[in-house]
């Protein structure tokens, strides 16, 4: 919901020469790419290609061995993510994320999950709890506002009816969308989604696609997406980055990437390397989940 428009030449996120080592293992090796505002950038690659590592570096869970992660916040200017603590990346740089294995607050209600996401704004409104404790109107208003924002997203993901359910009791697909909504409640400028379609059935997957394109078009933020489900990747992304063994092997539009020989090799293996079972070619026809958009 940011009005400020960035110049096309300064990308929202600029990853330069990111390297992450765990002991002898190089999980990300000199990766560089850009992600734009109002665009969905997908990061794909076989298992172990370093996609989640990249996310963890971006969102402050790992400190990268070297490299530069520059985020151009439309109002707050340039932020260097590699130098920020995890919680400040979400709070000050406006980068929100979801997790591969859903991390909701399972025993809190759906609504509470969305309210907790607005923690920092509410904290300020409650005068770091002191005013809130005394029941000041300023905090009561802020809370009403927070509920309104939560209700907006609940309507979006169709969970208004179940707002007072414990999040852990929701069906899997709803949990996925709730996690996206929760991340959006932090009002980010860049939303990082780690395999949001994993384990979803085709219908849920299609719902998710609509939600993501809605976020891109109506909220004008950038989306970064790790995904194995090629129906999602090919259906909604504007730009694709392909990783393999921690290196970037391709970068371009879905059509260009699909026909890139290096990408095909990474997924199918060399012609003389027939034992690669994990292969999953970036073709809609090869999608194991049978998703169709």
């Amino acid at each position, binding site marked *: 919901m940011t009005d400020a428009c960035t110049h096309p030449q300064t990308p929202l996120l600029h990853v330069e020469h990111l390297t992450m080592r*765990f002991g002898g293992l190089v999980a990300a090796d000199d990766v560089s790419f850009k992600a734009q505002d109002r665009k969905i950038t997908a990061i794909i690659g076989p298992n172990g290609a370093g996609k*989640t590592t990249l996310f*963890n570096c971006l969102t402050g*869970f790992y400190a990268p061995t070297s490299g530069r992660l520059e985020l151009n916040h439309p109002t707050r200017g340039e932020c260097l993510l590699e130098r920020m603590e995890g919680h400040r990346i979400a709070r000050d740089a406006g980068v929100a994320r979801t*997790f591969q294995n859903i991390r909701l607050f399972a025993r809190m209600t759906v609504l509470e999950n969305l309210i907790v996401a607005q923690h920092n704004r509410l904290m300020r409104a409650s005068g770091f709890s002191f005013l809130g404790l005394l029941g000041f109107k300023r905090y009561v208003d802020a809370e009403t506002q927070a509920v309104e924002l939560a209700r907006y997203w609940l309507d979006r993901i169709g969970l208004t009816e179940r707002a007072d359910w414990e999040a852990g009791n929701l069906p899997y697909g709803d949990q996925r969308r709730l996690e996206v909504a929760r991340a959006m409640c932090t009002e980010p400028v860049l939303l990082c989604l780690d395999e949001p379609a994993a384990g979803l059935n085709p219908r849920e997957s299609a719902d998710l696609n609509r939600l993501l394109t809605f976020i891109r078009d109506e909220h004008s933020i950038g989306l970064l997406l790790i995904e194995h489900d090629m129906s999602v990747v090919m259906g909604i992304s504007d730009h694709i980055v392909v990783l393999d063994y921690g290196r970037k092997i391709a970068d371009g539009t879905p059509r260009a990437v699909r026909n890139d020989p290096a990408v095909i090799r990474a997924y199918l293996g060399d012609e003389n390397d027939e034992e690669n079972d994990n292969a999953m070619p970036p073709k809609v026809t090869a999608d194991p989940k049978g998703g169709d958009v």
Partner: protein
Amino acid sequence: MEYFVQQLINGLTLGAVYGLIAIGYTMVYGIIGMINFAHGEIFMIGAFHALIIALGLGITTGTWIPVALVAALVGTMLLTPIYGWALERVAYRPLRGSPRLATLITAIGMSIYLPNQVQLLQGARIKTLPPVLQGGFEIMEGGGFVVTLSYLQILIMVLTVTLMVAFTLIIEKTALGRAQRACEQDRTMAALSGINVDRTIALTFVMGATLASVAGMIFLLRYGVIDFFIGFLVGIKAFTAAVLGGIGSLPGAMLGGFLIGLIEAFWSGYFTVEYKDVAAFSILVLVLIFRPTGLLGKPDIEKV
């Protein structure tokens, strides 16, 4: 110099006690990822069992002392592990898969329950064992200070090293050890490969308790005085040893045990006796804050 050597010897014997108990902490932590908070109490029960058997045989008479010692050792090594087994069966097994906090609370509950049970059964007053193994070698002398290495200390070191070697061999070479290592890696997969996970975990507790019972016996021989409350402090120090060495690592536990023993001996030898427990606790706090993996532990990468 002589004083230093004496403290070194004392520290190593003390460290043997901590090391033997620390192995129990570390093995249990390795296999089910929980701190068996009540492990120190198993040590205390081991000491009581040893004392009961020793007094029951009336060991004060000369030539029979070795026999009585062996009997007490074997007896406590047989009886005490039953407590280890029962502890796992009653307090931990029903909670497998529950939140960590719940298991930790049952562990604390047990560590309150057991000493109080012993207190009710045996009384709160101290229990003593008349000194049995006296004498030793005078290995050094200087400035009127005689450094002695008592027979008891030799016995303790021999016993400790033998047990440590034996247990390392069990874990490295036997099917049980393999099963334990498999459960450590992945319990579900181990179960699917035909390993009886429950039994393996129970046996881990039994092994830990066996070592703790020997530590109890050593403590009894060394100090001659026990009460129902010794498990708490010794237990925490042994846990500190396990953490210092790197929890989950067997050689780490032994190393940590000896280090804590030495630190305590030198601290009370050169600084103040009153604050020797503070030294142990401070090491625990510092290690956990600055190097939670300990000296020999594997780094623990946060999974997101």
